[in-house]
């Protein structure tokens, strides 16, 4: 799980946060409320999830409960790959 968390954090920093420091993103911080990812960013994120973890994200699964923080993403990936 912690490896997944690190992989997700790396992706978010590389693609959306660039100049931010590690402390600027908590693992429970909402991407939506913090303004980290926008609607097109979500599409990039989903594409990356599918490629990186070899999973298929169904349209019904595009909800904040699955995608809106590092920890939620990690838990979603764990469920999908279990």
């Amino acid at each position, binding site marked *: 799980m912690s490896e997944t968390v690190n992989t997700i954090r790396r992706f978010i920093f590389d693609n959306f946060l*660039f*100049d931010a420091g590690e402390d600027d993103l908590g693992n429970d911080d909402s991407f*939506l409320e913090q303004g980290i990812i*926008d*609607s*097109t960013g979500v599409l990039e994120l*989903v594409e990356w999830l599918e490629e990186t973890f070899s999973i298929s994200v169904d349209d019904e699964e*595009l*909800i904040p409960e699955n995608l809106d923080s590092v920890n939620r993403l990690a838990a979603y990936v764990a469920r999908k790959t279990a």
Partner: protein
Amino acid sequence: MLIPDFLIGRAARNPDRNVLLYGKNRITYGRLLAAARSLAAWLDDLGLEPGFRGALLTDEPFEYLASYFGILLAGGTVVGLNTQTSDRSLLYTLQDSEAGLLVANRKFFRHLQRVLPFAGSLAAVAVTGSREPVPGAGNLEYENLTRLLEDDTAPDRILPYRSPCDLAQIIYTSGTTGRPKGVMLRHVNLVANTRSIIEYLRLGENDRVMAVLPFFYSYGNSVMLTHIAAGGSLVVNQSFMYPNVILQQMVEHRVTGFSGVPSSYAILLSRSAIETFTFPDLRYITQAGAAMSPALVHKLKKVFPGVDIFIMYGQTEASARLSYLDPGEVDKRPDSIGKAIPGVELQLLGRDGRPVPVGETGEIVARGPNVMAGYWQRPEETSAVLRKEGLWTGDLARQDDEGFFYIVSRKSDIIKSGSHRIGPKEIEDTIAGHPAVHEVAVVGIPDDILDERIRACVVLHHGASCSEKELLKHCRIELPAYKVPQEVVFLEQLPKTATGKVKKSALKGVST
């Protein structure tokens, strides 16, 4: 008639009707007006000069609307700021508009701290949830915006007189020649356009629109004004990150209307479970902002059976709207932008200012009460588009023998990405500021979802090296996120015409 009269009239008739629904919040017309009056009273006490520019930096719907109407009631001019911003963009807009007031949400604290000391025209700042002045506010008049908007005890007082011909809003729009320019809209422009849209959409008190477009954009602004003027309700969710949540809200709130840009519909059709939903209350959907492909229109007709589809066209310089296609014509001519809206006259003119023959291509020139007063403090750019024939839109079109208009192309190289209008020059200037870059040209590339995505074509200095990642990081720091290119192409040289002008059309075709 002034814009706040829409709200005052509706609040008098139906004070307990919900005007705003978002998250768990329900805001009535009465409460919205009370909050606007409270802010207006504070502004009146400050004694700002009539017509002062009040800038808004918030994506919280109640804060935005209450401040919008509060500034207008106090005799000011609203400048809605894009909330996807950077220090540089924010400071530019505050300085260019010579804003006397800034109303902001606390989440923009970091920007405020860095920008306020340099925004010399500011006299007053109000920020949510903060009793103490935010750092950087210095000696500015300061107020806690949350307290102001919760105060419903402000008595109805006499506020500064404004005429329908006074400015109501300055909306910033991307230019091809450099920094964004402010479109000056008078009360009369916005009131006329609002009434015209209400007429053709047949909006009434029972309409509830799903408002997904930001209010600081012309299209979102017009969705907001038309529904308040009609006494309807706005169900607001402007993030569009989770389309399924929006679809659930449409069902839950029994929305009767939805307004989007082509990318809103592309996202709904490709990345949501829309086919599992039904919308028994949905009466109409509207589309504007860019051309929508007939294939997308066809798909929308399938997922929204029996719903009227309004294809619309306009620009910020026309308060929003210039033409619409009657839903009854959509099957027959899905690629048309229809005919002029009520009260507006559209013509197709050649370069010589004379009408072109039917079937031939000319520039769309508009006349009507909705046409802007000009660009803020830019007389040359104003006289280039506001000429004796009317507003020259820069869009080329043809007309069929039944009078329907069809867009052929745009004269400008503005990039239309999602709901954003992006001038390439600002991005080019930013990238050119990187020490390794010799030359750069930025173009829009067709994209199934976004309509266009941003491509930067870069030539590095001889012997210099720079990765795509490094360039994008440079852009991230300098530009708002939506202006950061989606792709970077490194080239040996840029294709140019004999006169040395970059051939942008050739750059759209280079392989990545």
